[in-house]
C-alpha cells in the first residue's frame, strides 16, 4: 500500500526517553530492572543506563518507596519518571500519589511544581493472570493535582511526556502492554480507507475518519490502549455493516478535555465509549456524565459504555477472553447505538 513502516510503540517510547534524558540533565529514571542489559521488563528503557548511568537507576522492589524518591527529586526541582513493572503494582504507590505528589502541588497554599511521571504497563491479553493484567486508570480519576495520560499509536510519546513533565503536575502514563509491539501511525494515514487528524489544543485528541471528518453515524471514544482495536472495529463496521464510525482517542484521560470532543459528538448524536477496565466507576462513566449534561437534547440515544466484565481477569487465554472487552463487544455496541433511538 506504499505506506512507510513506522516504528513500534515501544521504540517510540524508548526514543522519547532518550530524547528527554538528553535534553534535561535534571531528569531521572527509576524502576525495577531498568538498567542494561536487561533494560526493563518490557525493554522500554533499553540503552538508557549505558548513556546516563547516574540518572537511570534500577531500584529495589519498593513501588511506594520509589515513587516517594521520585517525589523528592521533583520537590528538589528535578524531574523524574518511574516505571512500575506492572500497573497492578501502582496500588502500592497509591499513598505517595494521592497524599504526597498530588497534594504537594497545592496543599501548601501555593503552587509547587512536581515534575513526576509514573509509567504503568497496563492491561491484559497476555495471559499474565489476575494480578498482572488490570487497567487501574479509573482508580486515579479525580485526584486533584494529578493528570492521567494513555499511550496511543497516534500520539508521539516524546511530545506527551514532555508536556506532562512541563505541566508541573504529577501524572500517570498508562501503556497498554499489547500496544508495545504495534506500530505507530504516521502521516495522517491509517489505511486505504481511514485518515486521521487531531482535535483540541496540543493535538490532544486523535480523530480517525472515513471520507469526511464531519460525517459519521456514530462516534467511538477510546483511550490509547484500545485505539488499534477501535480502528479495526470501525473498519469492519464500514465493510460489513455499512456504518460510518468515527474514532476519537484523547491522549489525556484526566482532566478530560470534553470541549475538544463535543463538536464531533454533537454532530453524530450517538456515542460509544470503550475501555478495557472492568465494570464500575469507569473512565467512560465520567466522560458519559459530561456528555449527557453538555449534549442533553442533542444526543439521540444515551452514551453507551463498553468495558470488561465485573470480574477478576483469568490467566488462561480462553477464559481471559470471556472477561476482557472484545472487538465483537465494541462492534455490537456501535451497531446498536448507530441504529437505536
Amino acid at each position, binding site marked *: 500500500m506504499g505506506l512507510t513502516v513506522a516504528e513500534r510503540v515501544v521504540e517510540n517510547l524508548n526514543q522519547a526517553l532518550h530524547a528527554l534524558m538528553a535534553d534535561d540533565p535534571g531528569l531521572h529514571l527509576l524502576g*525495577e*530492572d531498568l*538498567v542494561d*542489559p*536487561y533494560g526493563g*521488563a518490557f525493554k522500554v528503557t533499553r540503552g538508557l543506563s549505558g548513556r546516563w548511568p547516574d540518572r537511570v537507576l*534500577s*531500584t*529495589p*522492589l*519498593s513501588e*511506594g*518507596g520509589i515513587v516517594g524518591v521520585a517525589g523528592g527529586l521533583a520537590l528538589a526541582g528535578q524531574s523524574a519518571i518511574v516505571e512500575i513493572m506492572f500497573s*497492578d*503494582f501502582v496500588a*502500592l504507590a497509591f499513598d505517595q500519589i494521592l497524599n504526597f505528589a498530588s497534594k504537594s502541588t497545592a496543599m501548601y497554599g501555593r503552587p509547587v511544581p512536581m515534575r513526576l511521571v509514573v509509567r504503568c504497563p497496563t492491561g491484559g491479553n*497476555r*495471559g*499474565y*493472570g*489476575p*494480578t*498482572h493484567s488490570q487497567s487501574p486508570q479509573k482508580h486515579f480519576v479525580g485526584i486533584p493535582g494529578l493528570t492521567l495520560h494513555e499511550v496511543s499509536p497516534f500520539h508521539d510519546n516524546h511530545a506527551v511526556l514532555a508536556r506532562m513533565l512541563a505541566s508541573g503536575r504529577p501524572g500517570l502514563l498508562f501503556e497498554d502492554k499489547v500496544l508495545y509491539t504495534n506500530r505507530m501511525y504516521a502521516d495522517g494515514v491509517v489505511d486505504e480507507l481511514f485518515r486521521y487528524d487531531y482535535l483540541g489544543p496540543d493535538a490532544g485528541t486523535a480523530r480517525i475518519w472515513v471520507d469526511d471528518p464531519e460525517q459519521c453515524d456514530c462516534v467511538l471514544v477510546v483511550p490509547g490502549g484500545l485505539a488499534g482495536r477501535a480502528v479495526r472495529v470501525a473498519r469492519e463496521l464500514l465493510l460489513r455493516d455499512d456504518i460510518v464510525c468515527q474514532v476519537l482517542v484523547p491522549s489525556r484521560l484526566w482532566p478530560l478535555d470534553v470541549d475538544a470532543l463535543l463538536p464531533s459528538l454533537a454532530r453524530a448524536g450517538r456515542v460509544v465509549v470503550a475501555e478495557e477496565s472492568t465494570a464500575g466507576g469507569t473512565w467512560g462513566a465520567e466522560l458519559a456524565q459530561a456528555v449527557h449534561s453538555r449534549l442533553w437534547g442533542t444526543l439521540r440515544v444515551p452514551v453507551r459504555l463498553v468495558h470488561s466484565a465485573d*470480574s*477478576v481477569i*483469568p*490467566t*488462561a*487465554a*480462553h*477464559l481471559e477472553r*470471556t472477561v476482557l472487552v472484545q472487538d465483537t463487544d465494541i462492534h455490537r455496541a456501535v451497531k446498536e447505538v448507530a441504529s437505536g433511538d
Partner: protein
Amino acid sequence: MTATRTEAPPTGPTRLTDADLDLLLLIRHFELALLDMFGRGELHGTTHTCLGQEYVPVALRPLLDDGDHVFSNHRGHGHYLARFADPHGLLAEVMGRQGAVCHGVGGSQHILRDRYLSTGVQGESAPVAAGVALHLKRAEPGRLALVYVGDGTWGEGAVYEALNMAALWELPLVLVVENNGIAQSTPTGVQLAGSIGGRARAFGVDHLLVTSTDTNTVRAELAPVLRRVRDRSAPQMVELLTHRVGPHSKGDDSRRPEEIGQARAHDWYGRYAAAFPEQFSEHDERQRRYVADVVREVSGRPASRWDGVDRG
C-alpha cells in the same frame, strides 16, 4: 552486603532416599518441560521456574503437615509439587486445561489448594501469613504458617510490617528466604542493603543461615527450628543461600556467562549425578519419562471450564 556468596565449591552431596530424589527430579523435569513448551510456543503468559532451588521445598516437606499453611510466591512450582505431588493439576493450571487446580483462572502464580496459597504481588502475602499464624496460635497451637520470600522481596515495606507484628504477637510464622543472589536481573548487593540476618535481629527474631544445597543436610538444620516454632510460638527466619540456575521467567537471563556458570556449579543436580550416578540415572530417567507422560496427557485434555458460581 548480605551473607557473601561463597565462591568455594560446595561440599559433596549425601545419599538421598529414593522418594526425596524422585521429588527433586520431578520438580526439575517439570520446570524443564515448561521452558521447553514455552520455547516451542505451546504455552503463553509467563512462568518462573525454580531450577536449582528444588531442594528447598523438598527438604521442608516432611517437616510440615497438612495443617500448616504454606504461602508461596511467583516461583512456586517446587513448593506446590513438594506439597501435593500433583504435576497434572499444576500443569493443567499453567496450560488452562481440565483438571487445573484453579480452573486455569490463577495460572502459574495464583494457586489456592487447601492450606497452600500463592499470589503474584511480591511481599503481599507476608502480612496475610501473619494473620493466618495469629489464628493458628489460638485455634490450632503447634501449627505454623510458612511464607517463602525472595531476597529481592525485602525491598517491599509489607514484609517489615508483617515481621514486626509477628514478633510483637509471637506468631508461629516461618519466613523462608530463598536468597538466590538476584531479583529478576538485579543482584542482591544492589537491591538489599545490610543483611537478611540483620533484619531478623532488628525485630528480635531468630535467624538461621543455611548454605548447604544438600536436601538431607538442609532438612537436618531446619528440623529443630520448625520444632521450636511449634513449641514456643515465635516467628523464625530461615535464609537459604541458593542458586537460580535458569532465567528469571523465560529467556530473560541477562547474567554474564561466568555468573550463570557459578550458579550452575552449585546446582545440586549435576553434583548429585556425579556422586551417585547409578541411583541418579535410574530415577532421573524415570522422572523425565513421567513428566513427559504428564505433558502428553494434560496437553490432550480439553480447555478448563470456569462458570456459574465459581466466577465469584
